[in-house]
């Protein structure tokens, strides 16, 4: 589904042009939680506008923490952190940020569509448009029959899909997704991967940061893969995936695909 739709600007180059602005810039960033836990240390990371960067790494290595730092939900204990040359606060205020938390994080007192419309509501978009957009993304994640359901009436994977729909209802400039597809079956996952690539492909400036435990997924989706190791959390390697888009499903069977998978797995095993 939708594979043909990906006839986009991104197909014109292997990687976002080197002229693209630096969107995210972490320099020697360290995060020590109040209980003394060193979550990440010496993190250096530059992400250009328009990239699709996946983060892989063992459980507890600090992937979510990096997302929290980038969005400004937590402050670094040391180091320097710039989002588009400014601080996370300013980036957030620009209103083009969107994200999927590791937990679905739905309002239990609102039904599915109200939960999905939330970002639009907060932006003050007209009601009718809110609804249209929400219905569109709910269809995308395969939940169009569940508008009126309450979160507690959904299965685990369905909740996560509502959360994904909510992140896509706005037109994000920077999209952060923390294991969005972890609770989904392979078929749903692949459909959503295509949808995500298609949305990303349409806007050459859209940047996606993506956490996954699935190396195939990381390689299939990303322009770059940040491989992390733990204790303390560090970025061990930043691996380029120099394959042009659209990548059809045959890509998964190519030699370059398996080569990169092997490289990522190798980096992970260190």
């Amino acid at each position, binding site marked *: 589904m939708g594979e043909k739709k990906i006839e986009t600007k991104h197909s014109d180059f292997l990687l976002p042009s080197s002229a693209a602005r630096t969107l995210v810039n972490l320099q020697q960033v360290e995060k020590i939680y109040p209980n003394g836990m060193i979550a990440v240390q010496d993190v250096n990371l530059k992400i250009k506008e328009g990239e699709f960067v996946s983060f892989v790494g063992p459980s507890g290595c600090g992937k979510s923490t990096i997302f929290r730092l980038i*969005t400004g*939900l937590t402050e670094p204990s040391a180091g320097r952190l710039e989002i588009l040359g400014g601080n996370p606060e300013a980036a*957030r*205020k620009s*209103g083009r*940020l*969107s*994200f999927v*938390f590791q*937990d679905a*994080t739905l*309002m*239990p*007192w609102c039904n599915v569509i109200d939960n999905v419309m*939330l*970002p639009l*509501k*907060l*932006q003050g978009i007209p009601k009718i448009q809110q609804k249209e957009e929400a219905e569109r993304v709910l269809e995308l994640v395969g939940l169009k029959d569940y508008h009126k359901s*309450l*979160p*507690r009436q959904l299965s685990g994977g369905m909740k996560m899909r509502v959360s994904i729909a909510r992140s896509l209802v*706005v037109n994000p400039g920077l999209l952060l997704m923390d294991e969005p597809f972890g609770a989904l079956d392979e078929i749903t996952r692949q459909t959503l991967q295509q949808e995500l690539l298609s949305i990303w492909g349409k806007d050459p400036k859209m940047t996606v940061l993506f956490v996954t435990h699935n190396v195939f997924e990381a390689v299939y989706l990303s322009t770059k893969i940040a491989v992390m190791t733990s204790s303390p959390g560090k970025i061990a390697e930043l691996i380029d995936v120099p394959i042009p888009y659209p990548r059809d499903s045959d890509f998964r069977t190519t030699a370059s695909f398996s080569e990169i998978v092997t490289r990522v797995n190798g980096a992970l095993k260190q």
Partner: protein
Amino acid sequence: MASDVAKTIILSKKGSLRKQFLYKTFRSEIFLPVLAFLVFITLWQFILQLLNIPSYLLPKPTDIASAAFENGTNLIESVLTTAIESIFGFLLSVIIGVSSAVLLASSRIIEKSIYPYAIILQTIPIVAIAPIIVIWFGAGINSIIVITFLISFFPMLSNTLIGLHSTDQNLKNLFYLYNANRWQLMWRLRIPGALPYIVGGLKVSCTLSVIGAIVGEYIAGIGGSQGGLGYAITSAAMRLETPYLFACGLSASLLGISFFLVVNYISKRLLSSWHESEMKTEN
């Protein structure tokens, strides 16, 4: 696993389940409470009769009932007066309690600076400020309502405030990242999230408002209006009509219980769909 377990087959059709449910509801919600009430009343009656306790000390239910019956119209009038006073006082305390909680919750500094005065309002003995209340609001119903408010607003304020501070951190992050302003954060997240606590405040506050109205009648007099239960209780006490005194006291309680049931009903409707404390069916 234990293999000696008797074979039990669960084979239930929807219909029979529903019937069973209705029956159970009836049993637990109506039948047993009523039974408990009857037992309670009967015991009360017979123990007093047996011990031969005089009615001026602790009247028997029959004494109370007949006293209530004899003074029927008066009693009803008193109850109505007190009911009106307490409803207004209660509404005031809900409105002012919740809105000040919202105000206080909007800033830590405001909270720290103003909260102590809310506690003062709650703990200052009403008699101490009664004259000022009467001077500002006139004797009678206005002052009574103000006193009712003073007595019942703190639980609203305190509970609502705790509720507003209990917002789920993940949802708060969500709103923060989507640039919610204070207003949106308050209305769309913090207040709905605080509802279970607000309901807790309502339950305490609505019963306190009955007490408040009665105390109010003591302190601010009955003004030009009809005396309520506070007045009836004082005069029954003076005239040593203990059974009627109890009738008045129990009427106050019934008033409190009715308020409570109304609040309970509203809370069920408000929360039933999502909050554990009011969810009935299997989740």
